[in-house]
């Protein structure tokens, strides 16, 4: 009983293209369960599915016959790097689950492989990670689902979104979450300020400078997100291992630390000791390239007055680490301080020093330990493990790779949308604002939806609107 739908061709407004003109986006998702499993199924649906198969399964000429499994090498479409060897299937629409052209990749279930395949999919033009329930939604709209199917899928999706939600919550607590939230907040303000300028500047005192501020905020955000996209190597780390460098003065205990053999040979972690007496320049270069640096200090060399220790360590780090311009500072999460030979320091002094260092922003976490007596080693390993986990994502909990690929795609689309802002800034502010809105929508898929009311709240908080 609704007025709106299915316009007759004659009633169609000039702007509404027919379906043929507007291709639906192509989506993908890990369809098998999360966690470790023997075989993982990645499903692709949408008009670009055949392109995806061609690009990733090396099927340059003909597609395989529909609904027939084919063993193929699965490669990265850009780098042509081999990702896995697995089964691919091709479903020609409408004979597929969603009614659209679809493809399936049956690959090995390891997190590194899944990550790699999902990231490769996300890098293809016009292909994006599916939203929760999107396959079902498409199937439903194509008239593919019966009642029982919808019911069963509801529970499945519930399970899936619950897992995603828990995962998102976990991530949102972390540093990455704070980063995304911060971007989202700043983007919201940008949008609110553009919208204020559009909706109110004719009647209200909204300074012309507002848009210039937005210009520079948008540029700043673009730079940060792009840098983040470049920096973020977690997926790669999972595949290639984490580079850990142990640095420190002669006799601080670097080799002892390495030789304790208690540093866990955890999956994919390669150990690369920093050879002593390497030139300072080369040493720094190594540190710069490392994913994690353990700076080993001889505790007996610390100033006996605990209050002076922080400054001492600060100074020490600046000699060991590359200059801050290289993007590495003492506060970076890529550094751990190891205060070795703790057994040679009086216990009271150690405790007071520990207390002093606990409250220090700007200094990486410091662990007292003794390589000779193994005191403090357990605590150090816990800290180290959590660092490595942060660097790689935790392969055992949920599906970090899935979330990662999703994030990556949304962030990339955000940056693209922000380009539209600059492109139209002087020509058509409505279209420029659309760019910011779109960027926020993509970021919102990571951090949560942003509604019109929220934007209005910012407008009314930041401006005196009083017509």
């Amino acid at each position, binding site marked *: *009983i*609704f*007025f*709106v*739908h*299915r*316009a*007759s061709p004659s*009633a169609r*407004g*000039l*702007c*509404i*293209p027919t*379906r043929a*003109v*507007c291709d*639906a986006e192509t989506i993908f998702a890990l369809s098998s369960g999360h966690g470790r499993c023997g075989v993982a199924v990645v499903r692709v649906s949408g008009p670009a599915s055949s392109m995806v198969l061609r690009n990733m399964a090396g099927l340059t000429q003909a597609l395989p016959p529909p609904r027939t499994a084919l063993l193929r090498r699965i490669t990265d479409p850009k780098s042509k790097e081999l990702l896995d060897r697995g089964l691919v299937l091709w479903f020609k629409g409408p004979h597929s689950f969603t009614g659209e052209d679809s493809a399936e990749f049956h690959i090995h279930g390891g997190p590194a492989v899944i990550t790699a395949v999902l990231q490769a999919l996300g890098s293809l033009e016009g292909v994006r990670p599916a*939203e*929760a*329930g999107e396959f*079902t939604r498409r199937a439903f*709209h194509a008239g593919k689902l019966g*009642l029982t199917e*919808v*019911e069963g*899928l*509801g*529970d499945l*999706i*519930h399970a899936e*979104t*619950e897992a995603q*939600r828990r995962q998102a919550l976990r991530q949102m607590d972390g540093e990455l979450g704070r980063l995304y939230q911060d971007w989202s907040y700043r983007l919201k303000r940008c949008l609110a300020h553009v*919208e204020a*300028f*559009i*909706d*109110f*500047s*004719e*009647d*209200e*005192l909204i300074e012309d400078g507002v848009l210039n501020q937005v210009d520079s905020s948008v540029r700043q955000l673009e730079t940060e997100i792009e840098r983040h996209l470049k920096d973020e190597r977690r997926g790669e780390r999972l595949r290639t291992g984490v580079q850990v460098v142990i640095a420190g003065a002669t006799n601080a205990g670097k080799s002892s630390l390495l030789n304790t053999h208690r540093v866990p040979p955890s999956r994919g972690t390669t150990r690369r000791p920093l050879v002593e007496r390497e030139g300072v320049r080369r040493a720094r270069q190594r540190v710069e390239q490392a994913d994690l640096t353990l700076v080993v200090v001889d505790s007996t060399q610390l100033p006996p007055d605990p209050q002076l220790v922080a400054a001492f360590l600060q100074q020490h780090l600046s000699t060991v680490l590359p200059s801050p311009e290289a993007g590495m500072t003492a506060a970076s999460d890529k550094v751990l301080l190891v205060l070795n030979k703790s057994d040679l320091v009086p216990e009271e002094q150690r405790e007071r020093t520990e207390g002093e260092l606990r409250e220090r922003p700007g200094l990486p976490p410091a662990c007292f330990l003794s390589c000779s007596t193994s005191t403090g080693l357990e605590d150090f390993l816990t800290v180290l493990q959590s660092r490595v986990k942060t660097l790689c994502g935790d392969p055992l909990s949920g599906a970090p790779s899935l979330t990662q690929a999703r994030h990556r795609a949304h962030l990339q689309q955000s940056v693209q949308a922000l380009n539209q802002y600059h492109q*139209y800034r002087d*020509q*058509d*502010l*409505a*279209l420029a604002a*659309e760019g910011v809105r779109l960027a926020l929508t993509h970021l919102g898929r990571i951090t949560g939806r942003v*509604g*019109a*009311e929220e934007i*209005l709240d910012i407008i*009314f908080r930041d401006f*005196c*609107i*009083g*017509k």
Partner: protein
Amino acid sequence: MLAQKLHLLRHNVLSFVSSRTGSDFTRRQYDVIVVGGGHAGTEAAAAAARLGAETLLITQKIMTIGALSCNPSLGGVGKGQLVREVDALDGLCGRAGDAAGVHFSILNRSKGPAVWGPRAQLDRERYRQFIQSELLSTPRLTVLEGSVDELLVSQPNPEEPGHHRVTGIRLVDGSHPILSSSVVLTTGTFLSGSLFMGQTTSPGGRMGDAQSCAGLSYTLKETLGLRVGRLRTGTPPRIVKESVDLSLAQLQAPDKQPTPFSFLNTHTRCKPEEQLPCYLTHTTPGVERVVRESVHLNCHIQQDAKGPRYCPSIESRVLRFPGRRHQVWLEPEGLTSDLLYPQGLSMTMPPELQLRLLREIPALHRAEIRTPGYGVQYDFVCPTQLTPSLQVKSTQGLFLAGQINGTTGYEEAAAQGLWAGVNAGRTALSLPPMALSRTQSYIGVLIDDLVGRGVTEPYRMFTSRAEFRTYLRPDNADLRLTPRGFEEVGCVTLRRYKKAVSVRDGLQEALMALQSVALSSTRWREKLGNISLSENKSTTLNGLDLLQYKDVSFEMLASAFPECLSQYFEYSQRLKIEAVYRPHCEKQSREMERIRSEESLSLPSDMDYLSLPVSLSQEVREILDRVRPNTLGAATRLPGMTPAGIIHLLNYVLRTGFMHML
């Protein structure tokens, strides 16, 4: 006989109901009764009558039909879009604006045609006259002066949802009821309204008018059990023009060439050179001082009823944003009026302090007040209790529109009035109700926001509320709405329909003609001179591609290809706009499609969410139970709703056969 009991003011009514015969005065049965003669009521009555329903408009004072109670202006950013859409559906306010405007301007001219805001200062007298004579000449419409005391309700039709069915109304001093199939309430601020000025409070919805509708409030709250909330608004003092030193204010000229609101008009009644200017001035620290000194004498500002954040009184402005200059617009009230309207100076302090405050502004240092400003507090019915057709969910045949739904503004009221009138008429004529999609119109956005989310402060339209702003433009409202308004809704007259169809066909042809001229970018540069095209030399571009470029106008293309393009000169502006926005709208069309298909899945209004035998979390159940979304689309927009919850709902709706999908 009844006529006497109903207190007909004969001299007025005779002129009003001249389209009817005398015996019709005694008519006691109508298809539709509209209560209230403001922007919502007049549009509702006219729309119902256009649909073919015998319609009665009841108002407390016939003379105030079409009165502009507050600001003498129409349109603006977001609001102008609403006016264009109401006009596209053959409503009154666009044409009334063209007849009454004395100062036309397109706001946001430099910001892109999607957000242009057509606006006009109005001559109050001309506006009222236009609306009254329109109603007079509308067939099947009768106007009656009176106060409604009671809504008559009876048992519901068991085949439809709802606990009651409206059967008509009873007037304050009429013992005989007047019966109808539907009733539209557009009572504005008169529902338990009270007026505030300084420390005095009096019952009423507008200064100088009769009291509030106490009986109606009772019926709505007690009999029908509707939840109501309380909002406030206000109006500034009116200033004697002669007492203002306009040389101390900044003159704001209108557009040289007025742009009409209505798609039917090529020009406005007011000639370009007859237009009146506005004036801009600012508040001073003295204004803030007077406000601070008078807070204790100001009941209204101390009350906590919710006022709009975007149209606050000068008191709340300076209290919220102290130490700033605030803009004050001095607007003409009409060609012959000796008053000025100080936009931005709505206030509720005692009159002597209002005068002191005004005189703190240099241009107003000798200002005289004709009527002081005052505040109003009034009840509104929480609009989540309505369906997208603006019908009360629990009461068959009862429709609400305008401030009673928690909105503010003439344009918002007119838009709802029109849509409520359409559906009241359809219900009376036994046609199914209709909804407007938020993907197709600002009216759809407005109604969807109201019934889907409710209001916490007076709701005003902004362009930022519309997701598909680049498609919902003022220039294409006729294409979006007029053909359907005729073919499917029935509220558009044949004349307007024909015009819209010819425009649509003309544009279509012109677009095809543009696409038919294709050249390489090198050749285009040769033909059009020095334009910057980003494409490389060999790319072939057609005329429509080219028109997207900032420096390219339709006129340039037409002079390059006069034989196939020059006949479309009349559409040059619309073609340019279409060319720029088309690619973006195409990108959005998938999202539009999705929203529309979800909007088309309606959820039964009497669903028992708390005990629904499907797997939903308690949290989601409570949200659904509180808001009771009308469609699956509205449910997806609820905060806290999960994708899994949506699928479960979908499943339930499918299974129980409640789905209505076109």
